[in-house]
């Protein structure tokens, strides 16, 4: 079996469940918002307005879409550094996100986090972690706290295929299953840990199978369609909320761009990239909406125009916002107000 053939072995959604017009349009609008935001981010990076490490979400938008319909706002979410799309899907404004990328004081974390570190307590978005796999025990701990407090909430703990090789994952899976913590682990398998394919780093290529060692319910999911992501998440969330403990989904997806903005992604074949671009979740969803007459071309055009305007306004907001002065560098290191910094 060739590498490509192996990657293509993605279970397609078999659910007959119908989603209503509102859901489809919500998904489409969110995916388009993320796509346009990320395209504009790349442009701003090229203009050196956005600096540092920057990882865009283009290609993986269906996962963010499925999350908004299947998960409650009270649920927590934590992820790694490819996080712009997930933060936006949680309802963090594109203005605040773009301003953060520009390092502006009006950014979601006041210019202190940048591309890799968005946080919002209100939106239950716990970051934005820059260390591969570090968020896996943290998400497990967030879930631990929900169980401790006796809530009905779960913590969606997201990571990539690269992080699936970190020891932190195995330690976390073990404790989460032992203690039956309300955590939904999601591996966004985009097939490449930076430039290294899944096939080159392990004998086990189906990452969902990692869960089996812990007897954790684990499934592979088609990550190019919001329907299949939603269905898998809904089922997993119901399992977790019933008190049965964690659930693990390997969502097979693809990033159309390189690992970061500085990566030309020469380790992939054109045929492979084309195969996944043919499944582009934004285009496919738009096509389905029109083909099944879920909404009219005029309604789609209205959404496109609104998103275009929103992203333009986000960029304008970011450009016009002030930079931090730098004088407040000692703030937000300690909550103790009179901490005696060495100067």
């Amino acid at each position, binding site marked *: 079996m060739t590498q490509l053939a192996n990657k293509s072995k993605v279970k397609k959604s078999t659910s007959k469940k119908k989603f209503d017009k509102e859901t489809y349009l919500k998904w489409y609008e969110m995916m388009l918002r993320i796509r346009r935001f990320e395209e504009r981010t790349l442009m701003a990076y090229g203009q050196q307005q956005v600096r540092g490490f920057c990882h865009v979400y283009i290609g993986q938008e269906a996962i963010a879409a499925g999350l908004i319909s299947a998960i409650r706002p009270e649920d927590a979410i934590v992820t790694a550094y490819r996080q712009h799309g997930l933060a936006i899907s949680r309802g963090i404004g594109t203005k605040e996100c773009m301003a953060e990328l520009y390092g502006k004081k009006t950014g979601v974390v006041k210019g202190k986090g940048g591309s890799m570190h968005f946080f919002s*307590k209100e939106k239950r978005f716990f970051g934005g972690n820059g260390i591969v796999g570090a968020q896996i025990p943290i998400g497990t701990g967030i879930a631990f706290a929900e169980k401790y407090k006796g809530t009905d909430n779960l913590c969606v703990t997201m990571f990539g295929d690269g992080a699936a090789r970190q020891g932190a994952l195995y330690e976390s899976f073990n404790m989460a299953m032992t203690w039956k913590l309300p955590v939904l682990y999601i591996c966004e398998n985009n097939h490449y840990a930076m430039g290294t394919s899944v096939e080159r780093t392990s004998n086990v290529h189906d990452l969902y199978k990692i869960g089996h060692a812990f007897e954790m319910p684990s499934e592979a999911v088609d990550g190019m369609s919001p329907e299949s992501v939603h269905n898998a998440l809904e089922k997993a969330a119901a399992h977790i909320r019933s008190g049965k403990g964690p659930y693990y989904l390997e969502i097979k997806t693809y990033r159309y761009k390189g690992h970061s903005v500085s990566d030309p992604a020469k380790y992939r074949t054109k045929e492979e990239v084309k195969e996944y671009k043919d499944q582009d979740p934004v285009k496919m969803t738009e096509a389905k909406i029109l083909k099944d007459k879920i909404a009219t071309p005029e309604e789609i055009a209205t959404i496109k125009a609104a998103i275009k305007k929103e992203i333009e306004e986000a960029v304008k907001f970011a450009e016009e916002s002030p930079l931090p002065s730098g004088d407040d560098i000692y703030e937000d290191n300690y909550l103790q107000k009179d901490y005696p910094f060495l100067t």
Partner: protein
Amino acid sequence: MSRKIALRDAIREAMTEEMRRDENVFLMGEEVAEYNGAYKVSKGMLDEFGPQRVIDTPISELGFAGIGVGAAMNGLKPIIEFMTWNFAVLAFDQIVNNAAKTLSQSAGEFSCPIVFRGPSGSAGQLAQQHSQTFEAWIANCPGLKVISVSDPYGAKGLMKAAIRDPDPICIMESEVCYGDMGEVPEEEYLLKIGEAAVMREGTDVTIVSFNKMMKVAFAAATELAKEGIQAEVIDLRTIRPLDHETIVKSVKKTNRLVIVDESWPFAGVSSEITYVVQKYAFDHLDAPIIRVNAADTSLPYSAPYVDAYLPNAKKVIDAVKQVTYVK
């Protein structure tokens, strides 16, 4: 009213009182529950608080340290026990990259009110991997506070303060001090983090130390007194933030300083103290500052190596005689 209790009991009292006071406080670590603690610090706590709040973990330092960080970000107040700080090296990513930086990278959106605690330093012939001190390593990192305890009174007051503190705190204890007895008040008290204590007043030399090296400092001071040299002995108690004011005040009185520090010498706690004293008391020094550290080596197993490696009273007395120009 006070009574004499062991250091392990003082730490347990602190944790127990705080867990009674705040239901969001819990204890997690290896062997803390059913085994009653590898060093019996948490003895009886499982019986009082149950398995929801006194939690045995698998041997997964990185994992349970991270679970603590996540729980702290989500509103709880974890106490994470490491069987020794030597094992916490496996968890440094969570301590240094996450606990320390959550407040900064979230611009204050999320805090991390967590206590990491356990014994640090040598404890007999435990050889290279079980004998390291971590005060200097951890105290280098902004965002963290570092406490190192030497006696039951200090340990209880600082432990209670640490559990209530909103910032992430690392507490270093010592296997060889858990049985040490000391006066501890019956009534509740807290000590201020960031304050050193003058434990013995003197006029001729200042000896600064912390953790179990306080025993060495006291032993040296007792011997020196017999020779007419009165040493002022300071227990740092908190390493970060360092209470340099108390040290500088003492040095201005004694004009001489010896630091007894089980850290390795390079970029250790003693280096930092030396810097602040030359900065704030340069004109008051009548002799170069001398530090007595662990040897700049790993610690081999056999007994003569332990003697060669560790600071002891004789090494401190020699250092004091050097700074006081006594033959």
